[in-house]
């Protein structure tokens, strides 16, 4: 049985079949750390009811080998005698009809026993049996997911890129704009009690005010006045990011929390694809926001001025453009877009204090990929990163999907150092 599972995964990586989740739980008190020690677990079905007569086999150091089966309470246990690494395999053929491992790759779990006397609990999460969807279906769904992720990244990246373009600031605290908006949405809906449809726009407005207007007015503008260098400003943004992150943790705690409404929305099937109404709505609004921002850049006086400032601040200033005002507008626009990105993530996946930090690297990757400081580049880069992150899970383990995206970033920089749409700098 274990063999067929191995075959399933061979195509992915030579190491994969060895490696698996472990959930060691310390049970006995340290004072009585003595043998005997056991490996044990409780196997339940997707409803949480215990499953009996499920076979478990264990291989261990020095040729150790043992078999067990679950009892009426779903419990199995195997006493072990020596330290070392054990591999525990569930006999999936024993599972009743309609029940399967939630992750079919995890039929074998590896556990390291460092200390005797500490029992180890082994988990085999079981859910309703899922029919493996076809490669085409998975690709189509992942493409859709990738576009959605790309959109969220693009919303954040556009602001980051515009701010970089006009002020030269590489803002490491940009992710915290997302977190703030997400937390505000949570606060307004779960604590104040507003419906999400009211809380979300309010959170975006507050985000634009706090993260855009106030942040620039009271932090960055005075620093520009002082003539603070670019690297110093970058370090200041790191300090700000650390401060805000732990401030959010202090206030909000470390959990990921879901909004009271729309948390578990049922998906709508459409051909190969499945998506939730909330993801459609947030996506449509997101696309409209990006279109709006693009029109602002291309059509309005202020937008054109912002491109002039990005191109050459001294020249723009000399031709009568109020550079500080343009920068303020860019900050507000950037904060609005990023706040909305935070709201989208919160509605679709919930919010935690680390949300912004987790997104920041992808945002950086997108902006760098497209070419630092170019708005179109940020959009293209975001889409590529979003698609790549999702589609790469067809070939690499899901937990490594960000690694794949970051490696692609590095590879593209080798081939095209200025990014996909960036232009080379003039020297001299």
């Amino acid at each position, binding site marked *: 049985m274990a063999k067929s599972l191995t075959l399933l995964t061979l195509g992915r990586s030579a190491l994969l079949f060895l490696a698996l989740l472990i959930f060691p739980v310390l049970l006995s008190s340290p004072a009585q750390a003595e043998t005997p020690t056991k490996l044990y677990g409780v196997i339940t079905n997707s409803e949480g009811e215990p499953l009996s007569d499920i076979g478990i086999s264990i291989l261990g150091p020095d040729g150790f080998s043992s078999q067990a089966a679950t009892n009426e309470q779903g419990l199995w246990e195997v006493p072990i005698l020596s330290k070392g690494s054990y591999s525990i395999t569930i006999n999936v053929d024993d599972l009743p009809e309609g029940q399967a491992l939630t992750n079919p790759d995890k039929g074998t779990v590896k556990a390291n026993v460092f200390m005797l006397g500490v029992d180890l609990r082994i988990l085999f999460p079981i859910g309703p049996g899922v029919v493996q969807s076809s490669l085409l279906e998975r690709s189509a769904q992942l493409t859709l997911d990738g576009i959605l992720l790309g959109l969220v990244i693009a919303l954040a990246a556009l602001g980051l890129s515009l701010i970089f373009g006009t002020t030269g600031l590489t803002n490491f605290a940009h992710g915290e704009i997302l977190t703030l908006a997400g937390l505000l949405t949570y606060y307004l809906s779960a604590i104040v009690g507003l419906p999400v449809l009211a809380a979300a726009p309010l959170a975006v407005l507050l985000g634009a005010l706090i993260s855009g207007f106030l942040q620039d007015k009271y932090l960055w503008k005075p620093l520009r006045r002082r003539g603070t260098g670019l690297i110093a400003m970058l370090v200041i943004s*790191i*300090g700000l990011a*650390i401060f805000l992150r732990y401030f959010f943790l202090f206030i909000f705690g470390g959990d990921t929390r879901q909004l009271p409404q729309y948390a578990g929305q049922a998906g709508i099937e459409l051909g190969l694809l499945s998506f939730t109404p909330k993801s459609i709505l947030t996506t449509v609004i997101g696309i409209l926001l990006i279109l709006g921002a693009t029109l602002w850049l291309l059509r309005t006086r202020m937008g054109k001025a912002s491109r002039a400032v990005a191109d050459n601040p001294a020249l723009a200033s000399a031709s009568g453009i109020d550079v500080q005002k343009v920068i303020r507008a860019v900050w507000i626009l950037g904060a609005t877009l990023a706040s909305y990105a935070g709201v989208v993530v919160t509605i679709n996946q919930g919010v935690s204090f680390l949300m912004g930090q987790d997104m920041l690297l992808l945002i950086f990757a997108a902006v760098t990929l497209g070419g630092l400081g170019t708005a179109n580049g940020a959009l293209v880069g975001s889409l590529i990163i979003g698609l790549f992150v999702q589609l790469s899970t067809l070939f690499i383990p899901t937990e490594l999907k960000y690694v794949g995206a970051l490696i692609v970033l590095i590879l593209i*920089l080798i081939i095209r*150092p200025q990014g996909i749409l960036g232009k080379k700098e003039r020297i001299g």
Partner: protein
Amino acid sequence: MDFLFITQQTLSATIGVNTIIFALAAIGLNMHFGYTGLLNFGQAGFLAIGAYSVAVPVISFGLPLWVAFLIGIFNSVIFALLLGVPTLRLRADYLAIVTIAAAEIVRQIARSATFNSTLGGSDGITGKFGADFFALNPFKSGIDTPILRFNANDLWVVITGWSLVAFIVFIMWVMVNSPWGRLMRAIREDEDAVRSLGKNVYLYKMQSLIIGGVIGTCGGFVYALSRQSVQPDNYGTALTFFAYTVLILGGAARVFSPVIGAMIFWFLIVFIEQVLRQGVSNNLIPDWLIGANQVSQIRFMLMGLGLMLLMIYRPQGIFGDRKELALDAKA
């Protein structure tokens, strides 16, 4: 409040294991950033490579510890080459983004279940991989005085660690005061100008990246050995940022600044933490304001705030007064 205890804890931390680790990380960054102007935001990756390189060969492959050190340095050089080849020809901000990404790649691979069997997954590796090192410990017992307290193993780590720091600082001092160091500082100022004088800037930047990275890796050795354990999440971007804080505290581009910076950093951290803890446990600070497990969060908030204020008001570091060494002298 038990002021004696606070003093003992604070002073022990000021010259303790963490100070050594951060001093080494920051000495490496000083080579990169202070002397060459390279914005390496992946220093945590170099430390992680050091830490895993002592743990994995000993635990998983049964190699002796000294071989593991060599493997660590080798891996560190390879990592620096991988980072440097694509990015050292690019603008400084590209290096920053690529290095921060690369360090995250290292951490995520290390903590992934995919490589659980060798790298230990998100739980990392715990085991007696430092046995060879602690076997050499001449101290049978630690010290416990009113102002300093170390157990026997920590005492051994602290003494060998500071010897390593002293040796590296000495080598750095010789190097930065040579024509090589002058060339590095010139690259920091303007690499195109240095190129126009016939110097192979790319090669020198690579040397800087490797040397600073290997010093960071030594910090990773100390990190892993002192705890006899490696936890992947200790090597996140926060570690790099705190190493920068240490560097800027002491004032970049001076040989001793990372050491001084690390001492001030840990002095402040442990002092604030101990005072807050005592305040909370003696009910001097009300529970609704700061809970017992929120002390470390306050500590991090103060760190972030401190880094901002330092950079705004004293970019040359606490003791720096030479305007020309201020980080923002160059716009």
